[in-house]
């Protein structure tokens, strides 16, 4: 993990957003939509690249900023996809915007998923609920160079069948070599699949090499903890597990202090951490 990697900053000043225009809005599930954003300045667009797992700060003047992971394909990023759940003041305001409206964007910020660790190994991606969007750029990236990796799994848990994201893409992903296993907390009529928590999917997973596999998890903290525990019971070590964490973020550059988790600034040292580095702090209540 390269902590001091100089990231692209649109303007010389990391605090100043660039203008982004909403080009497309796709409703996903109840309370969640994907926004395709285009940076207004074409020079900025050309310079902009991101790694799967990184995030932008999206800004609605008057309402404030929210940290949102990119959810689109990192290798064709003229339009930046952000899948947003309308939960807080800022995201609800974003939810009220229309195609053609503009907002502010700063980024990309943070570390990404450990691509350099993945080559030649079995990969297990675990997502809970709204934790899937930060993993989608990784899925695109991995499937684009599928032959470089061993088996690739997506273990996905949602609250109920209709709360599953991106299901229209599952077929295409499967055809490209992603094995998708799903579970829901609460089934509805017609659901034939698993019911239960995500770690159960991992417990049932047979064909993977626990000594060399890489596990990448994004979802609620409790789900990440239990999934990591299951993985370790299967013989994986905490050095093979990566999690994407979340904290209050305001500056995204390690200067405002809000996102501290032990010694880490989640904004710049994370949000993706190797589990052995972050679990001593993640497991302490209220740290």
């Amino acid at each position: 993990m390269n902590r001091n990697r100089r990231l692209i900053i649109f303007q010389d000043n990391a605090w100043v957003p660039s203008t982004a225009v909403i080009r497309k809005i796709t409703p996903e599930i109840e309370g969640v939509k994907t926004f395709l954003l285009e940076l207004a300045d074409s020079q900025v667009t050309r310079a902009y690249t991101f790694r799967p797992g990184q995030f932008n700060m999206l800004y609605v003047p008057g309402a404030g900023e929210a940290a949102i992971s990119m959810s689109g394909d990192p290798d064709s990023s003229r339009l930046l996809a952000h899948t947003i759940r309308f939960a807080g003041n800022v995201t609800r305001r974003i939810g009220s915007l229309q195609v053609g409206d503009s907002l502010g964007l700063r980024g990309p910020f943070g570390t990404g998923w450990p691509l350099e660790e993945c080559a030649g190994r079995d990969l297990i991606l675990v997502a809970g609920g709204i934790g899937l969007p930060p993993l989608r750029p990784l899925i695109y990236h991995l499937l684009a160079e599928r032959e470089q990796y061993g088996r690739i799994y997506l273990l996905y848990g949602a609250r109920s069948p209709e709360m599953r994201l991106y299901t229209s893409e599952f077929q295409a992903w499967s055809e490209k070599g992603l094995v998708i296993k799903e579970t829901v907390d609460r089934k509805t009529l017609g659901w034939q699949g698993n019911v239960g928590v995500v770690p159960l999917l991992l417990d049932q997973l047979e064909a993977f090499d626990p000594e060399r596999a890489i596990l990448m998890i994004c979802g609620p903290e409790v789900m990440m903890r239990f999934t990591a525990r299951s993985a370790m019971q299967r013989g994986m070590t905490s050095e093979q597990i990566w999690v994407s964490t979340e904290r209050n973020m305001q500056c995204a550059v390690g200067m405002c202090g809000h996102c501290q988790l032990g010694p880490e600034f989640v904004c710049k040292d994370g949000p993706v951490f190797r589990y052995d580095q972050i679990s001593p702090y993640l497991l302490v209540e209220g740290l």
Partner: protein
Amino acid sequence: MSTQRHSSYSCFLSYDQFAKIFDVLHAFDYEVIGPTLEQEAIVYGSIRTVDDLPRGWTDIQEPGRYRLQQREDDALFGYVVGPHSWKQFLFPPVSTLSTADRTDVGWQFSEAKQEFPKVAYLGVRACEIAAMQIQDRVFLEGPYVDHEYQSRRRQALIIAVNCTQAASTCFCTSMNTGPRCQQGFDLALTELPEGFLVEVATPEGEAVINSLESEDVTPEIETAAETARQNAVEQIKKELDTTDIRNLLMSNLEHPHWDEVAERCLSCTNCTMVCPTCFCSSVEEVSDLSGDHVERQRQWDSCFNVSFSYMNGGLVRNSIRNRYRQWLTHKLATWNDQFGTSGCVGCGRCITWCPVGIDLTEEVAILRQSQEQSLLESEQEADHLPG
């Protein structure tokens, strides 16, 4: 302050000559900020003439208590450190980060336009220089640079003053930050009954001194200055044992003592506000009536503020225990991981200005004692195990 190498030298300034330094600084376009009496304390504010300085006053400090007291002499810098720190000038409590304007082609964003005047900071103590250098690491030496802080820092002339006395709350010797100013200044003064021994460290400092009539330093002056500075060292009674302090704190995150501190801690934010290194802030939206012009304002904030750790409708640190633990472990332990230095300079402000007088050195000592006690007990237990 200049970063270029400059061989330092010393000279002597009489009180009369020192009194002229304000005109010289003003002629060099410096605004002068220094110690002055206000609100029953020695605070940092605008200084026009030598008469604005707290001549003949000192401060008496203990946990939760600060009082001014008249001295028996006319010393200008015969006090220790007060409620203010220089952070309020380099990293102001409220500042505008960026502006947003609604136009026909959408929101346009720009950097807040600000002027950064040249400022001479007069009376900076060794622990305060250390604090500035710690904030430099936060705002200037990471992957991102804070433009406002950088501009203000570049415009600063540091006129340091060596402490010749200490408060009961001082523990800079434990933190290796003082009381003697070693570096990080343009000029450093040691106050003596007849005037000032001046160490000249940079060309900017030299330019100021060259505009005054300084004298050569005699061995007697050198000796008197050394004695005065040694006086401060001898008065420092408070200690913080920093041995392996990171692991001491981080391996005791669930220690019952955090609950005990939480019974006393008001979570009022005072310690973090007076701390010269605490850098936490929040961003507020400030909008005009139409909502077409919006500014983003950065305000000092604190890990003791309940809403500081707000996330997804809940609070990560939802108790005073957790907030005090965050502050202390950050200040004395994880700061090292983040910035390669302790976050504490031993100035004692958090002790003096805590309304209920909580003393972090005592809290750490209790944790250390408890750790040593349990080590001892486990050793004794091991001794009693059948061989």
